[in-house]
């Protein structure tokens, strides 16, 4: 089993090397796209800064705490899109190229995550990390708090990635399209920028379990800033672990159900 995991990880690493070499050929395009992805972080910072400039902000959350939530959301969406681009995956399925890929002796889920991401979304990760570093320092997050945060964040990112992969496959199996995944990503990314409590109980549940965007941005911040109890966070980690397992099984099942467009 360990050898199998190691082999798949090596494939993931090799794929990244090849894809980055490919990007290096079109440097100008790459720089433009990095800049575009960074604009989403700029927009978040501008929005939050103006909100706190003209009002007292959101109940229970200071300016820097809000920036921490927002920057984690930007990093999260950047990392998710780095690994999975629903439109690209659906297109590859439709034109039959995906068939060639899953015939190779690698895990199909790892194969999808290796090859069909948007590499330029790294711009969102970089800009999010810069804002996060600054906001975390200003909000006085300790080293242990930071470690806890990043641990839950990593779980949240994996959970959201697997969720997006699952609904992309489901959408393709049902409708032969993943056209509306972009919208779901946009709404998810926008909703995750703010504390889930502002959406009320239905919104909090929706963005925790239904469209799990809060797991990577809201809960790590809420734990460190003392807005939720340790027990709640353990429960959230449990939900994350369970979701990852469920989504993984669903992805494997949906991969078997999928029919290519033929090429």
């Amino acid at each position: 089993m360990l050898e199998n995991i190691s082999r798949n990880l090596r494939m993931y690493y090799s794929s990244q090397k090849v894809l980055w070499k490919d990007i290096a050929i079109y440097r100008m395009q790459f720089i433009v796209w990095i800049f575009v992805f960074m604009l989403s972080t700029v927009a978040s910072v501008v929005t939050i800064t103006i909100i706190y400039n003209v009002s007292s902000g959101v109940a229970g959350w200071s300016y820097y705490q809000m920036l921490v939530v927002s920057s984690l959301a930007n990093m999260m969406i950047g990392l998710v899109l780095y690994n999975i681009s629903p439109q690209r995956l659906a297109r590859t399925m439709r034109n039959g190229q995906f068939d060639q890929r899953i015939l190779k002796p690698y895990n199909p889920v790892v194969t999808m995550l290796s090859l069909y991401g948007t590499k330029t979304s790294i711009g969102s990760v970089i800009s999010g990390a810069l804002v996060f570093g600054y906001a975390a320092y200003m909000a006085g997050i300790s080293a242990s708090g930071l470690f806890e945060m990043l641990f839950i964040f990593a779980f949240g990112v994996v959970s959201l990635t697997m969720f997006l992969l699952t609904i992309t496959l489901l959408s393709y199996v049902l409708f032969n399209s993943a056209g509306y995944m972009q919208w779901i990503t946009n709404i998810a990314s926008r909703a995750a920028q703010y504390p889930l409590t502002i959406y009320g109980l239905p919104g909090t549940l929706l963005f925790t379990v239904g469209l799990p965007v809060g797991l990577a941005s809201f809960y790590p911040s809420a734990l460190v800033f003392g807005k939720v109890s340790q027990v709640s966070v353990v429960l959230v980690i449990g939900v994350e672990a369970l979701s990852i397992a469920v989504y993984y099984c669903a992805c494997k099942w949906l991969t078997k159900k999928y029919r290519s467009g033929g090429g």
Partner: protein
Amino acid sequence: MKSKYLSVFKVFSKNAMAYRAEITLDAVFYMLSSLVMVAVWIAVYHFSNLTSISGITISSMTVYLFAIGSIGFLSWPGVANVLESDMRSGEIASSLIRPIKYPYATFVREIPENLIFSFAGTLPIFVIIYVIAGLHLTAMQVLMLVIEMVLAYLIINFIGFIIGSLAIYLTDIYGILNGVTWTFSLLGGGIMPLLLYPKIFYGILMLTPFPFLYYVPGGTFTGIIPAAQLPGLVAEGAIWALILLAISVVVWRRVSRDINAVGV
């Protein structure tokens, strides 16, 4: 002469009509996206215990956010896609020898989709908001709103035409187009009314073409912009449209000399 462009218009109108379900679903998603920001601002108003921020009440803010959400139908410079696709496929070579002027044809091809998306997407949402929010617009405000929407369409598509023309040198222009739409959203009131920005930024931004896509139509519809300011803003928008038209003409003259279609 006119019938040639009318024929192109008719053909592309039929194509655009094929996307009726897509328009409806897009409208739902635009509203859901706006709903997130509405929730944020409701939380801000409640916590701050304010009835208005920079003169904007919570109901005006809600109407504004839904209105600019529906303007999203017009925010993509589709003319750029037409140019890029023709240049990439080599179609431009055959288009240039047809007895119609190619730059006009790109607009005539794009207008049906925008018109249908506006009538089927933006207009119903505006009407629903108007009725639910109990807005009262005068005939002059409605007229100004219509002119502003046309100017917004022209401004974003003239910019699209300039960027699309550059596809001959850059090949892939989607990154730049995305950057432009983000910039319009950020600097043009696509996130919140520009009135909330610091006064100095507000003053500077109002001199640029950015507010004409979101803030000016959204502000007119909600009444955030006083009616007395509207004719001046429309005149400024028209000047920007003319400046961008002039730049488009210059860029096209330069670019059309370098067109060397390969076709794939």
